[in-house]
């Protein structure tokens, strides 16, 4: 068996989610090849070659892959992927965007967001916003899987010494064009990999009030997240949304501030090691998953907490 892992990267370095995906590949077992598709991505490929457990890195460096357009990347991965037993990508918005196309081009189903490898053809994955865990078995010739990063530890970023091989496959479908992007800039850790996450909900009242969370987060070295209600109300940008349809996080510590705990929100954070809930409503469902709850006004509690940590 040989496994192709699609690397999530920014051309210069490999993103953390790739390391978790490699651990999933190791659990399946077999030769692990990593594909770095991008533009000017030699540095990312060199970094991929050092990851523990990787036996080969394929570098597809071409303008067509510069912005990870799904139409182009999927054609590349479907062509290269034909020789593999498994094709894996992290369940990031990028992986979710192009990998189902790969599966369709290979005439197989995709198994989304696996959280456990039972055997090379059998996997666990959450369904119904994490209210049920399904064990599924694929009869497809090639298993195409997205991997939920929180389900697997990160592979060591160093220790490997794989060869980097250039692949000269240029696939430009010509059907779509990158126009622009607005990326959030922040000095705080990324939500996905952070050890501590502090999230605010509708209870924050407005965007300005998030300042008290940012300052608590900075003291803790934490990332800041939000509920959908906070994002919908325009308090904070969409990339901060945690939940069934936002990001899934599983930090050591998750602090939910002014969040009621709707099932869609819980789906994105209930695998955190320790959960703290701060809410003025003692009946809020968030308390049913919290290890430590404190009932009261967040505008009193958060500043006190910041002073004491």
């Amino acid at each position: 068996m040989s496994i192709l892992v699609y690397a999530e990267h920014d051309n210069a370095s490999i993103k953390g989610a790739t390391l978790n995906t490699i651990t999933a590949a190791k659990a399946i077992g077999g030769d692990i090849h990593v594909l770095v598709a991008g533009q000017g991505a030699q540095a990312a490929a060199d970094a991929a070659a050092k990851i523990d457990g990787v036996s080969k890195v394929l570098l597809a460096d071409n303008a067509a892959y510069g912005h990870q357009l799904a139409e182009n990347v999927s054609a590349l991965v479907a062509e290269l992927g034909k020789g593999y037993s498994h094709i894996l990508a992290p369940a990031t918005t990028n992986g979710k965007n192009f990998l189902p196309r790969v599966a369709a081009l290979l005439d197989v189903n995709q198994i989304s967001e696996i959280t456990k490898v039972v055997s090379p053809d059998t996997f666990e994955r959450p369904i119904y916003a994490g209210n049920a865990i399904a064990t599924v078995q694929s009869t497809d010739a090639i298993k195409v899987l997205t991997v939920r990063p929180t389900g697997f530890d990160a592979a060591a970023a160093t220790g490997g010494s794989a060869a980097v091989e250039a692949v000269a496959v240029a696939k430009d479908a010509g059907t779509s064009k990158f126009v622009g992007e607005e990326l959030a800039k922040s000095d705080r850790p990324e939500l996905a990999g952070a050890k501590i996450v502090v999230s605010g909900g509708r209870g924050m009242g407005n965007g300005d009030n998030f300042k008290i969370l940012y300052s608590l987060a900075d003291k803790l070295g934490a990332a800041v997240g939000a509920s959908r209600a906070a994002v919908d109300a325009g308090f904070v940008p969409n990339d901060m949304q945690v939940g069934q349809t936002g990001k899934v996080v599983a930090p050591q510590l998750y602090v939910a501030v002014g969040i009621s705990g709707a099932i869609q929100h819980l789906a994105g954070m209930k695998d955190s090691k320790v959960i703290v809930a701060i809410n003025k409503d003692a009946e809020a469902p968030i308390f049913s998953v919290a290890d430590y709850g404190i009932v009261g006004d967040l505008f009193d509690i958060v500043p006190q907490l910041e002073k004491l940590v």
Partner: protein
Amino acid sequence: MKALVAVKRVVDYNVKVRVKADKTGVELANVKMALNPFDEIAVEEAVRLKEKGVVSEIIVATVGPATAQEQLRTALALGADRAILVQTDEDAQPLAIAKILKGIVDAEKPELIILGKQAIDGDNNQTGQMLAALGGFAQGTFASVVKLEGGKAQVTREIDGGLQTVELNLPAVVTTDLRLNEPRYASLPNIMKAKKKPLDTKTPGDFGVSALTSVKTLKVEPPAERKAGIVVKTVEELVEKLKNEAKVI
């Protein structure tokens, strides 16, 4: 231009589903069913484009049991013009659904195809992308803004780091994110009118699709339960617990 919207009948998002005792699936008997929330947004987007005069006709389609007619009627009440039910009692998987939808696209030739980004039962997030691949179409997934101008679609997408805008040739597949729009409620007169709108029934075989699944569900289990925690009285106590008991700060 014609628009095709694909919708699914799912358990209402307010229902906390329970796993069946025999672990074969989740309890669906007597559970409230609804239009998948992302698909409601997809219908709404098509209706708004029709109101702007960009879209001329909206076809709504589903693959599912006879009862999925309810969700098609809901979509018709929201403003779709006609509906197609591809009837099957099997729980078809995304690849088969995408193949059937591709058959509908070939027959109807829509220039804009809108799906939800994910069905909230299986949480697959695949069908739109698969349909786009089968048709060789461009795709704008997780859309928060859709503009049609100059024979192209401009789609702003919600991605991990923020927002990305892409320009797509038509026909294009768009999948909706939550912030694309806020769906309207169907008015009573529109619900009545929807009962008279055309609804065609087909079978997967009509589109040459016979294998509806390739992934078997071996068992379905409840997730690991979290142990109930404690409520602390003061912030001092909270910090003490986090430092000395949980050891996370």
